[in-house]
């Protein structure tokens, strides 16, 4: 294990960052010095200082606390949205890839339609149709992620399908489902895991974008994107801390997952031999 980590130090760093993020989200109540939803009209728009590390917003709430709690929403949306996309996408990909024929044709046309639909517009439309709530943002982002997993899975299935051990399994009468689950699926987990990690990064960005447009979690729940939206009007008065806090939050979260995903990809892909 230690040898493995020594050969792939980035895996260690990336994994550590992600773990840290998850811990911050879980232990937010212990890390945040104030209640993120406590309105205090006498302390509005305070710049960063010893009492409030990132200052207060226009309702007197502590920005640092809100940024810490914001991790909860972003992470949960990221994880759940990707799970939805992953589950639905991989299932369709497996079925289409293995069965082929008309099933494959129809499924791939539907997936093409989803892909051709501009992703952000699709997410906004779904959230508009279902209502601006956190669950619907998860569904919307999940739906947007489906095509990627379907194609990835299907591609892998197609390339693996004709291999000898699959033909052998079929000859001895193994059922389709068994073949898929026992033989095909384990061979494609590596790229899927890498993709999932990177997808979480994308999902966190997408959630931030949706709540920036007012289509995410409801107040007074602190969410990074919405907080940036609500503080945008104060930028012209040069009160920057309300936007920078949540912005840094998004950046650090997305960066961690991207870094970890990259490191995973390099570690799991035997062909990588070049850059550091």
């Amino acid at each position, binding site marked *: 294990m230690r040898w493995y980590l020594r050969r792939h130090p980035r895996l260690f760093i990336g994994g550590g960052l992600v773990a840290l993020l998850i811990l911050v989200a879980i232990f937010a109540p212990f890390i945040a010095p104030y209640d993120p939803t406590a309105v205090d*009209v006498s302390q509005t728009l305070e710049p960063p200082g010893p009492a409030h590390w990132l200052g207060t917003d226009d*309702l007197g709430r502590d920005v640092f606390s809100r940024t810490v709690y914001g991790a909860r929403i972003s992470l949960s949306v990221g994880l759940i949205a990707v799970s939805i996309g992953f589950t639905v996408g991989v299932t369709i990909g497996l079925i289409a890839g293995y069965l082929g024929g008309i099933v494959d044709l129809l499924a791939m046309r539907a997936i093409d339609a989803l892909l051709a639909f501009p992703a952000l517009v699709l997410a906004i439309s779904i959230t508009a149709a279902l209502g601006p709530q956190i669950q619907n943002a998860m569904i919307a982002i999940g739906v947007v992620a489906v095509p990627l997993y379907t194609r990835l899975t299907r591609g892998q299935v197609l390339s693996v399908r004709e291999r000898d051990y699959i033909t052998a399994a079929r000859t001895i009468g193994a059922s389709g489902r068994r073949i898929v689950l026992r033989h095909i699926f384990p061979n494609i987990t590596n790229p899927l895991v890498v993709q999932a990690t990177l997808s979480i990064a994308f999902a966190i960005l997408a959630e931030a974008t949706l709540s920036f447009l007012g289509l995410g979690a*409801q107040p007074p729940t602190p969410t990074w994107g919405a907080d940036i939206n*609500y503080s945008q*009007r104060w930028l*012209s008065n040069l009160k920057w801390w309300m936007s920078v806090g949540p912005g840094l939050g998004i950046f650090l979260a997305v960066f961690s997952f991207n870094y970890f995903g990259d490191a995973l990809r390099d570690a799991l892909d035997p062909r990588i031999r070049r850059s550091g």
Partner: protein
Amino acid sequence: MRPFRLGPLVVLAVVGLVFVACGSGAPAPTTSGGAPTAAAGKPVAGGSVTFVLENDVIDFDPLKSRAFVDRNVHYQIYDSLVRIDETGKIIPWLATKWDTSSDGKTVTFTLRDDVTYHDGSKFDAESVKWNIERYTKTSGSQRAGELASVDTVEAVNPTTVKFNLKTSFSPLIANLVDRAGMMVSKKAFDAVGNPDDFTRKAFKAGTGPYMLTEAVKDDHMTLEKNPNWWGKDKDGNKLPYLDKITIKPIVNSDVRFTNMRTGDAQVANNIAGKDVPTAKSESSLVYQEKPALSFRSLIPNRAATYVFNEKRYVKAVSMAIDRKELLDKGYFNIGVVGYGTIAPSHFAFDPNFKPYEKPDPDGAKKLVQEVGKGPLTFELLITSGDPVGLTLAQIIQAQLKKADITADIQQLEFAKILELQSAHTFKGMTFVGWSGRIDPDGNTYDHVYTKRPFNDSSYSNADVDKALDEQRATADQEKRKAALRKAEQIYVVDDPARVWLGFGAAQLLTNKKLNAPPVYPDQIIRFQYMSMAAK
């Protein structure tokens, strides 16, 4: 070029401040165009300005216009039969005088004889007839409601037109101040043909001080001086002074304000509350403000089976809210505290009507206990993605907490909130504003009368209905005042229709290189009086 003189500008600033302070006491309107006395020396003709407007104009045709923002342009390119002065009093415009018969069912207007449309066609009684008939008879006309009392229009002779009404309707003249009284050139309308196209391309179709010559969606509109306008200033000089106005629609108030500060734009009439202190201290800008006709309110759903069907609950919320704090922290002190629909510049305004002057959370608590169904909890709906609304809602939530009333804030998409409102199925309260009308009837009737289009609270009170009908039928100002105030006492205090929070402010921000006209309570800029300051 005359040397720049500070004196006239100081006088102008003082005059402006005096207007703001009194809100009245304007000079008596003169015979032509109602030009107020601007103090800054002899106005210079010529010059162009850029006006940043809060939204794009969708309809240049008054018949189709639905949005308040459209009027900012309409007032420059069209003249109405009558207008208001800066105190809100109705003055002659295209009509020099009018007489109402004793039964109130006939109104005869005498028209100016020196008016031509931008395209050269003549303005006369036939034109008025054509316009009013177009407004009342076209399917889908947005002005039909305002002119519902009009039965027929007769062009007696080129300068006399008679309106025959179905019933006596005293707010008619007030309605003719705005879009329902705006005169459009039949020749220009017929030239375009398709009404859907005319409303986007109504070029040179009015009689107003400026002509619309260019309009690019979401980009800009160009207004050019009408060399043949009939209006004159108090010295007999021809108006308008300015040659050209470029209007840029900019939805974001920060960008608008930045444009004003850099001098890229010189006129704006909607400034965010948080920026007003900067505007006042900026040396290159002149800021004017006066209470407007617009009101701010919380609408409860008072239909049966909803929590606010119980009138004591509405009253309790009204008692618990601290309107002064809300004005201060939520609206940045822009506007005034108010309790009903009758605005400070309305003739029926009662400055002593202050039913909820001090917040009374204990009284509210007692009232809720009196109802005996436990603590009051309700949904407070606001539009998602709206920072100003959210701030207001959270201040109110904190205020109501002091009276043990719980307001659960729900953010919904604007479309969804409108849907719930129109269907009268929203569960608690929602924020609604109204841009305001010159006659108090326009702020009240459709909002509290049983089953009227803006009565989203499903409010119904027979005494209120009776009083409102009464004030419509009589032309006697005193009788109208009494009836309006009687109704207000009921729909604000005894059986509240809504929780009114206050009135907005009419603002005008101009670059000091301009001689700015005073700000009017309808917030619309009278560009015909604006001129470049003498250098």
